[in-house]
């Protein structure tokens, strides 16, 4: 199973150059059954990462470009009257795929955003009073531009919370950029990629992740981190128990990718920023607060070996 993990990582890494940590985080998020939000400037490779991931996991996927005039029906689907059979027929929207790529999610109106986000939480959609189960496994990979960009509707906190992780790619290093510029063709080479795993194997991997040991010491550590964010005078929003759950799940997946059977504090620290940054940030302050700071502040206040100690 571990060979599959490294195969996926290698394959994605061959297209998205110089970003092994971000790729690993994205994979961990999917293995932990979480949805992922990729936030960065245009042209940084967000969509590429999302597409390569979907391809490599061998899942059915469809990409939707979110725009301000996109309607909920465009995402979910719509019943249309068929004059021949004299019946309403359901035209399924892009959400009935295992991987849904929602490009530039914050360009869509809040109404459309919430239609998608409802599906993310419930794993089902209702059209004209009929409930349809979504195919499993079901992932939403969303990308968005930074909030200050023109024509964006920021996702409210409650909807941001549905994403297990928010990652950003950042600028590539010189080596990687050189390679990107040199091989013009490689940008589109992902279309020819073959899937590394099938659905059964992916589900088996998810099961393996859920069986990773989380000791009491780790739970204590997570709780201590949560408590720091809830303390009086803390500069961000407090972390919810769901945030703690997401943190533990993501850390388990990370430990799995790192080929360990148990979670160590380093796993927590590694995934912490990706899992908690978007939950900690104050929306109003996010324009000027440097993003990494607030997660680091939280981590810097907890003693690893004695989380509740003095």
């Amino acid at each position, binding site marked *: 199973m571990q060979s599959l993990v490294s195969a996926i990582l290698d394959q994605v890494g061959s297209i998205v150059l110089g970003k092994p940590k971000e790729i690993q985080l994205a994979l961990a998020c999917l293995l932990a059954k979480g949805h992922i939000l990729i936030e960065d400037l245009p042209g940084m490779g967000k969509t590429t990462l999302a597409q390569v991931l979907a391809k490599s996991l061998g899942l059915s996927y469809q990409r939707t470009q979110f725009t301000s005039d996109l309607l909920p029906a465009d995402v979910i689907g719509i019943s249309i009257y068929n004059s021949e059979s004299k019946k309403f027929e359901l035209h399924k929207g892009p959400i009935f795929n295992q991987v849904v790529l929602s490009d530039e999610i914050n360009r869509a109106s809040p109404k459309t955003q919430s239609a998608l986000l409802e599906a993310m939480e419930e794993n089902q959609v209702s059209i004209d009073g009929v409930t349809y189960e979504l195919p499993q496994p079901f992932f939403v990979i969303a990308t968005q531009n930074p909030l200050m960009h023109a024509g964006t509707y920021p996702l409210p906190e409650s909807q941001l919370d549905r994403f297990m992780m928010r990652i950003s790619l950042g600028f590539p290093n010189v080596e990687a950029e050189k390679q990107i510029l040199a091989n013009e063709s490689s940008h589109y080479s992902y279309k020819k990629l073959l899937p590394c795993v099938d659905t059964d194997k992916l589900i088996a991997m998810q099961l393996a992740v859920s069986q990773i*040991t989380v*000791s009491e*010491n*780790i739970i204590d550590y997570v709780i201590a981190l949560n408590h720091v964010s809830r303390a009086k005078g803390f500069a961000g929003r407090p972390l919810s128990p769901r945030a703690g759950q997401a943190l533990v799940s993501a850390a388990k997946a990370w430990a799995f990718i790192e080929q360990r*059977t*148990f*979670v*160590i*504090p*380093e796993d927590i*620290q590694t995934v912490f920023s990706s899992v908690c940054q978007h939950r900690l940030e104050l929306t109003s302050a996010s324009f000027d607060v440097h993003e990494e700071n607030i997660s680091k502040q939280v*981590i*810097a*206040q*907890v*003693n*690893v*070996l*004695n989380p509740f*100690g*003095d």
Partner: protein
Amino acid sequence: MIKGNALLFKRNISTQNAWALWLCQILTLSLLINELTGWMLAIIALCLCWRTLVFIKPTQKPHRILLLLIACSGCIAIAITGKQLGVLLSMLHLLCFAYALKSLEMNSRKDFYQIILLGIFILASVLIFSQSLLISLFVFCLLVLNLSILLAYFYPTTNIKKPLIKSTNMVLQSIPLAIVLFIFFPRLAPFWEVPSSKSAQTGLSESVTPGAIANLARSSALAFRVKFLTDIPQYNQLYWRAMVMDDFDGRTWKQSKNSHGFNRGKRNKLSGDIPKLIGDKTQYQVMLEPSYQHWLFSLAVVDKNQLVSNQVDTLTLSNYTIKSRKPISQTSSYEVTSFTDSLLNSPLSFDERRTNLHIPSDNNPRLKAEGRRLQLKYTDDIERAQAILDIIREDDYHYTLTPPLLSGNGAGHELDQFFYESKKGFCVHYASVFTFIMRASGTPARLVTGYLGGEYNKQSGHLSIYQYDAHAWSEIWVNDKGWVRVDPTAAVDPERVESGLSDTIQQEGLFNNDLLSLYRYKHLAWINSLRLQLDALDYQWTRLVLSYSSKKQYDLVTQWFGHFKSWKIGGIIGGALILMMTIMWLVNIKKLKKKSLDKWLIQYQQVLTILKNKGLEKPITMPASQFSIVVSQHFPLLNSKFSAYSQCFEALMYQELSTAHREQRLNEMNQYHQQIIKQLKKV
């Protein structure tokens, strides 16, 4: 777990802690303000002020030689005044002097220990002088504060809150054992002599001079408490007799040698004719506040065979008062049975008759003339007394606590001046005049001082008698009745005798001596009920704690465990100790278990400590796995071993291991541990 780490020990006291210590010193010493002499207080204040200066400017510390000089001269001064002060007080002075001076010499840990120890010792000595509930609670709080300051010194945080909570917790845990020790530990008699220099401040005075005091010392301090075991007599029957003053020199009433210097022979002679006790008996327990005097309080007539006390060595006198052989220097109690209907009719000897008729020949001629006039007019003693009371009642006399000073018109005629001119006075004036006229008319009469009445506390059913209840009245000798009590104050202000001080009197700026006293605000209902509740609480404290004597202890042990044997006491205390420790152990067993499991954590901490000494400190937020990388960069020699060691540690910390695996990992880790320590020593 890190708490035990010696490396966290801080050499310097934090500023907050130093201030707390300073405050603690001031509070402790303020408890002894009444005991310390003025010059000592001045020195202490100077030392503590200097200490504040050092807070602001640390360079202002006094020079060592200067400190030595102050210490020496202070000791010499204490030695010189030692004779006046007595052993106990001079020792106390020395202790307080050292305590204040030491705050200027805080250079090392040793000094810090000494000052805390001194503080606790002084706190204990505060209890020699007062054991009231309030003081005891205050001392308890200061003890906790002292301990928290000591604890805060070793605490990794600078905040005093946590050590405060912890030390309170610890002291509270020790309370059950303290109670066992209190109940069962042998009660030793104090081996110091408490100075009796305070007699002037509290209690009744041993002589009374009407007219010499314009403002009666009106204090709402507690004099004593009484718990009645039988029915409580009426308020106007509660004449608590303390002293009988039968010696009058024209100005001042005193006790004559006969009754004052009770001699054994006379007492023995009297025991032949024990007063006939008739009527219902009134049984009560008196709990005395320290008065530093000999006088005990009782209702007449006391059955001396039923006078029980194990704290006071009592004596019954021929004038129906009782007395302690030693001054009352601490709260003590005794039980009395009185027969209030009995007559005070032990035969009057010739000497006694002469003393009780004596009036100086050279003063107060008008009163003497009045006495002779009445002698001729009324043959019956009672009628004559009634006539005087009628004069007082009907004429323009006023009861006031602030009478004008009596000059005696330059010839010692104070009583004349009062009776015919000023006509304003309190109990002593009226009782003196009455007694004087009775004597002038040929009836033996005497002045009795003590207390009248008392405040009944419904909650605990006891009577509290305060200093402002002090009273003086007369007794006249009637041939077939013996000594008959006559209270002339009743004639001028009946309310005083029926229910205590009247409202008009209270408005005379009463109790100007104690502004803070709750009595001042008695008219506010809630304050009054609060005052009564506090009084009830203090009463219980006095009854249960302060009156707990070796006799009570003996009774208790005999009642619970049969014959009193010292090995039994030892057994009880030892048993309690073991019981307490078992309980503590059971409560903490979970924590202890966890600690014993976490051997690897302790080991890992040890290695971290060594690394820290070598200059490589692990940031507390850095996980072990990352730290092993840092170590490999700093100490390439350790590289493989340390990362394997860290892996073992993390596996033990975070992996779910079977017992066998755990043992195996632990062994591995032990081996690495030894090797790493060995290698680190070489580095």
